[in-house]
């Protein structure tokens, strides 16, 4: 188990390469919060229950991601600024396979 590198572009358009641990049961939303890449209270509002879409992001690399759960799918159906590559950060768990992942945070809504 080791850290992986993730490239996260924040809402201001700045890209950050951060180390994400794979052994802490962390998800992408939590990585964003841990590195404070979006102001507190604007990301992960529901805490990671796929119930608010504040952690929506666009996945730009070709990594194979776990399929969307019904909850995530339904939440994205009600969110704004949704694109084909939209995912909820809280539903993407940090695993070795995601090394080099590239994501852009969706606008706040």
């Amino acid at each position, binding site marked *: 188990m080791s850290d992986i590198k993730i490239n996260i572009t924040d809402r201001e358009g700045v890209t950050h390469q951060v180390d994400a641990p794979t052994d802490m049961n962390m998800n992408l939303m939590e990585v964003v919060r841990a590195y404070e890449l979006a*102001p*507190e209270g604007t990301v992960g509002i529901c805490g990671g229950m796929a119930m608010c879409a*504040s952690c929506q992001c666009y996945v730009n690399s070709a990594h194979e991601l776990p399929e969307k759960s*019904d909850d995530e799918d339904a939440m994205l159906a009600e969110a*704004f*600024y949704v694109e084909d590559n939209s995912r909820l950060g809280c539903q993407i768990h940090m695993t070795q396979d995601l090394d080099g992942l590239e994501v852009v945070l969706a606008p706040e809504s």
Partner: protein
Amino acid sequence: MITTDILIIGAGPTGLFAVFEAGLLQLKCHLIDALPQAGGQCSEIYPKKPIYDIQGFPEVLAGNLVSNLMEQIKPFQPGFTLGERAETIKKLADGTFVVTTNKGTEHSAPIVAIAGGLGSFEPRKPLLKNLSDFEDKGVAYIIKDPEVYRGQKVVIAGGGDSALDWSIFLADVASEVTLVHRRNEFRGALDSVEKVQQLKNQGKINLITPAEVTGLSGGDTLESITIKKAGDTPEGIQLKVDSFIPLFGLSPKLGPIADWGLEIEKNAIKVDNTLDYQTNIPGIYAIGDVNTYPGKLKLILCGFHEATLMCQSAYQRIFPDKKYVMKYTTVGGVTGFDGSKKEAPKAVVKKIE
């Protein structure tokens, strides 16, 4: 003017529990909340989700935690101003505060405890460029009085419980109800989904899916909307409407509290965590998720602790000359303002012969 001892802003778990701790000190509380019901996020976002880290509850549904708290504080007869957002605060010469809501309701108290969580819940608005032009002129995000829609042509957008429930309700009130959703699937209580299916089959609800409202037009008031169905021509369908109600859930915003002169850091209110969770304005406290201090954790269990210490400090502020020692409920029991009394049963002392 509503007067009380501690005015609590936010009726989530932390605010509710503060009523109990205040009650033990014979202090009365009144709560203001922007939502129409108590419970904050627990009621609004995740009532059916379990929580596993409330002391003494191996598992409790968020909604049940709220009803338990309501039961626990009942003897202390808290007042509620629900569905109104605390807007302004004024400190009077005698040191008391007057808090006024967006609807003009005034509250006066010597102590204000902000238990506002992530802020007040505001409706999430769809991205339509002239949407704000028609607000209250055909566009509404919250249904306050369904009678307004009697005989109207109404379009509801959204795919959750509120979109389903209001479509069902308005099917009997409005002359025409159209429900627009981006998917064919809805997420809501099973019987709501089935009921909408039934009403659709009976022709009482016009269902357009997968589709999106893409434009609004009208003069002084909303007259028609454009609905684009997936795979359709870009022009979409024009539909004459009287009202458009987008129901895409609520998201919390710190809102007017941010302008009260309180020290704000990371969208939260800085407090003194070495003592009593008081803010930079003496007499105003911030407890629960709305505050921040070194090592802060946004947990309900931490909010309960903060509420308890806040009440002790509030008591001393209100009665600076009174001597007081904290009493265990097991020893002192709980005496409600309603005359009720709960106490530990007396031990039986009886000789065995």
